[in-house]
């Protein structure tokens, strides 16, 4: 899996001025994604997953300010790139799949027009070439009678089909990086599985780097190579998926994993794990571990700067507890 690094993020911050101060939805987030690798960003609602993905694509709301020590895509510094350079990269080298397939397609155009438009815009291809590529990709994402679908409007397709069209659209220019922001959340469960399987297969086949944002740990377990667990705007734990699931180090990750029912292990009628308390407000100056108010192992040291710990297997986490102390629970 050791391909070339496609995306490198170091110290990514997003600040949004609000009435009561400055909101910090993303704080000091760092990760990298290599070619052919899937990184899953997990965390509960409002933890900054989507903000991170929007920051990568430079799609943040107008008021938001993005800062980063390094934001490098294929060796190119995105923070320094001009608007037109960003526009040339977006859709061509980096693509995004949105959460809501019902609104992510423009109702005024046919599927074909939308698939072809950006490909021709970026590649200057002829209509016939663009069309045949659109048909090929629609077939690739598993849409039957693709050529006929090109003439249909989004409202004539089901949610699952639309999400397949969105995936085909993202792949039109053959991107190096695919950011998928909860691509299956708006779909029903059987379709969710199909879409995720499709994404995983395509990612394997085309060898692209993928950042998948989700709050579904079941999804993560199936398709992630690496996992970054986000809490309150920070990555609290990051590492290879197998390590994270086998030996979660951060109390939040442990809490998250205990919330999932495991067939065969969780007794019927038994209670699932919960994490007490609510996510803290992210407005103003934030110090120390933001999970300390909900953590069973909180101690006075938690309000100071938290050390970044690292394991042999490449797992990183932010906690005052030493691995030995944690092993004792």
């Amino acid at each position, binding site marked *: 899996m050791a391909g070339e690094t496609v995306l490198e993020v170091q110290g990514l911050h997003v600040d949004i001025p609000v009435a009561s101060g400055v909101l910090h939805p993303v704080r000091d987030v760092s990760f990298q994604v290599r070619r052919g690798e899937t990184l899953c960003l997990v965390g509960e609602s409002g933890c900054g997953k989507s903000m991170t993905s929007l920051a990568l*694509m430079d*799609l943040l709301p*107008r008021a938001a300010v993005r800062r980063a020590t390094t934001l490098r895509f294929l060796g190119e510094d995105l923070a320094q790139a001009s608007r*037109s350079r*960003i*526009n*040339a*990269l*977006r*859709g*061509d080298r980096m*693509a*995004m799949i*949105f*959460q*809501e397939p*019902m*609104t*992510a*397609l*423009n*109702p*005024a*155009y046919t599927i074909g027009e939308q698939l072809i*438009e*950006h490909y021709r*815009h*970026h590649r200057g291809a002829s209509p016939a070439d663009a069309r045949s590529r659109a048909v090929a990709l629609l*077939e*690739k*994402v*598993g*849409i*039957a*009678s693709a050529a*006929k*679908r090109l*003439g*249909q*409007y*989004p*409202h*004539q397709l089901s949610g*699952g*089909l639309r999400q*397949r069209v*969105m995936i085909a*659209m993202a792949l039109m220019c053959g991107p190096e990086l695919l950011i998928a922001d909860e691509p299956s959340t708006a779909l029903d469960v059987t379709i969710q599985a*199909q879409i995720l*399987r*499709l994404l995983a*297969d395509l990612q*394997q*086949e085309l060898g692209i780097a993928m950042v998948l944002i989700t709050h579904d740990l079941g999804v993560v377990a199936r398709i992630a190579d690496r996992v970054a667990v986000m809490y309150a705007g920070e990555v609290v734990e990051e590492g290879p998926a197998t390590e994270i699931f086998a030996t979660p180090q951060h109390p939040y990750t442990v809490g998250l994993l205990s919330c999932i029912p495991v067939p065969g292990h969780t007794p019927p009628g038994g209670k699932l794990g919960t994490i007490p308390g609510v996510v803290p407000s992210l407005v103003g100056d934030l110090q120390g571990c933001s999970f300390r108010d909900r953590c069973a192992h909180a101690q006075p040291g938690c309000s100071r700067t938290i050390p970044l710990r690292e394991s042999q297997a490449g797992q990183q986490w932010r906690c005052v507890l030493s691995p030995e102390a944690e092993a004792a629970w």
Partner: protein
Amino acid sequence: MSAQLPAAVVLPELEAVPAAPAAWRQLLRNKALAVGGGMLLLLIVLAILAPVVAPYDPYVQDLANRTVPPVWYEQGAWLHPLGTDQLGRDYLSRLIYGARISLLIGLSVALISGLIGTTMGMLAGYFGGRTDMAVSFLVTTRLSMPVILVALATVALVGGSLWVVILVLGLLKWDRFAVVMRSATQQVRALEYVAAAQAAGASTARIVLTEVLPNVLPHLIVIATLEAASAILLEASLSFLGLGVQPPLPSWGLMISEAKAYMFFSFWLIAIPGTALALLIFAINLAGDGLHQVFMPHERS
């Protein structure tokens, strides 16, 4: 290319893409649109074909045959089906030529004000923030001035003519376009396909013109019809007050104004252009309502 992919989702049958004739049938199924549109179409055809359809030159005076009543009066004759006016000009011909002026006013004012209002509204709705504040300020400023007063004052200063009326009304009537386009654009802007277009590398101009505009177009068309009707009425009012279209042009408002001295003896002189005006406004409003019903209730989602 040989990797295992999930089997294609097979639907029982492909939904047919509505062909053009079916779309027309759907438009015509709306009665308001069919009736209003039909009346409007008839008027437009009459106006365009005025030189062919009108029995007389609308400017030729025949002082021997003044205020001849229409054919349904005892003294009326088929020579002048709608009679003649106080200068002996054939009233039917003047009415037909007058339709040209009314339609021209309606269309050009809707175009000019639509262009101004849509540009301002879409900029405000798309960019928000300071742009929105500036546009909202302009709109409220404009709304605080009564159109008819400003139009009267301007025309009185500059002097009335058809083009002055069109320009003044066009520059005054953009407020509703701006208000509606602003809120419609705000709604569309928040939808994910706009973000998706950004993520696909489209420039702002491209997004506004090719992603947002087609989706706010139904609102635009509906307002354009209503504003056209209101502009026609305003022109008639201005002409009636003597500050709009100047004689001898056969504007309907002007015809009413010129005939007002005779209304107690030759009632038809004001009744006929008045009715024509009312019918035109009725037709436009009906068509606008119909378009509204066709476009708005089941916006494609």
